[in-house]
């Protein structure tokens, strides 16, 4: 079972594609203000780049990229980024998730909303990426071939 699926061609193709998919995922997240995209779509692309290495190379190789115990804290960090943005805005005198009240000095209110949307999109992307990888890791646990 061990050597049955290992193919250097598949592994090389996955290694070639994975960084570009990851860069494109970050592009979709960050450029979501100007083009179709956003946190959910970009997070799915980031998870695709990580899962490609996991499927092609097995869990031993994937540990070099992102380790299994790190996925749950990353998901929590993604949710906490979103919630903390709303909470900081509320503590600074606005409503919950009212980005106008974010305490960043020297920025106009409309550009504060721009920055607030960017922060929460990054949080959504992190959480979606970590959770998709976490689901895969939990499903293949103990039945990995490499």
């Amino acid at each position: 079972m061990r050597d049955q699926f290992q193919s250097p061609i598949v592994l090389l193709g996955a290694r070639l594609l994975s960084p570009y998919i990851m860069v494109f995922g970050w592009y979709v997240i960050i450029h979501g203000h100007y083009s179709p995209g956003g946190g959910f779509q970009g997070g799915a692309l980031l998870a695709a780049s990580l899962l490609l290495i996991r499927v092609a190379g097995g869990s031993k190789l994937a540990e070099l990229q992102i380790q299994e115990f790190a996925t749950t804290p990353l998901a929590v960090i993604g949710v906490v980024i979103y919630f903390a943005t709303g909470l900081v805005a509320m503590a600074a005198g606005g409503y919950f998730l009212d980005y106008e009240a974010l305490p960043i000095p020297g920025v106009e209110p409309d550009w504060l909303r721009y920055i607030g949307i960017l922060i929460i999109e990054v949080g959504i992307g992190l959480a979606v990426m970590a959770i998709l990888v976490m689901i895969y890791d939990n499903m293949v646990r103990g039945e990995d071939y490499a």
Partner: protein
Amino acid sequence: MKALKILILVLFAGILIYASSDLPFRGDPDNLMHAEESITGTTVKGNYFIQNAYRDTRTPNMVTVVLGDYRSIDTFGEQVVIYTAGLITLLVLRRSRRRGK
């Protein structure tokens, strides 16, 4: 029987194509959903987002503004739903080490 299936499929495709010919053109400013007043005379709520999305947030993508700013609590709920789904897989699929030994 197979001919009947194909006939039903073609019939439904014809109905859908006929119905799609009556849809409004995409991006036409005269569309009903872009109007300030609906047919019944009430104001259209989505009109506010079309007129003020760029002025409020300096973001050209209106969908991102609605998703991340005007409806941000809804998006937060979506994220919590995905997070809960991940935690459920953690509970259901992860084998405990004590049982394995």
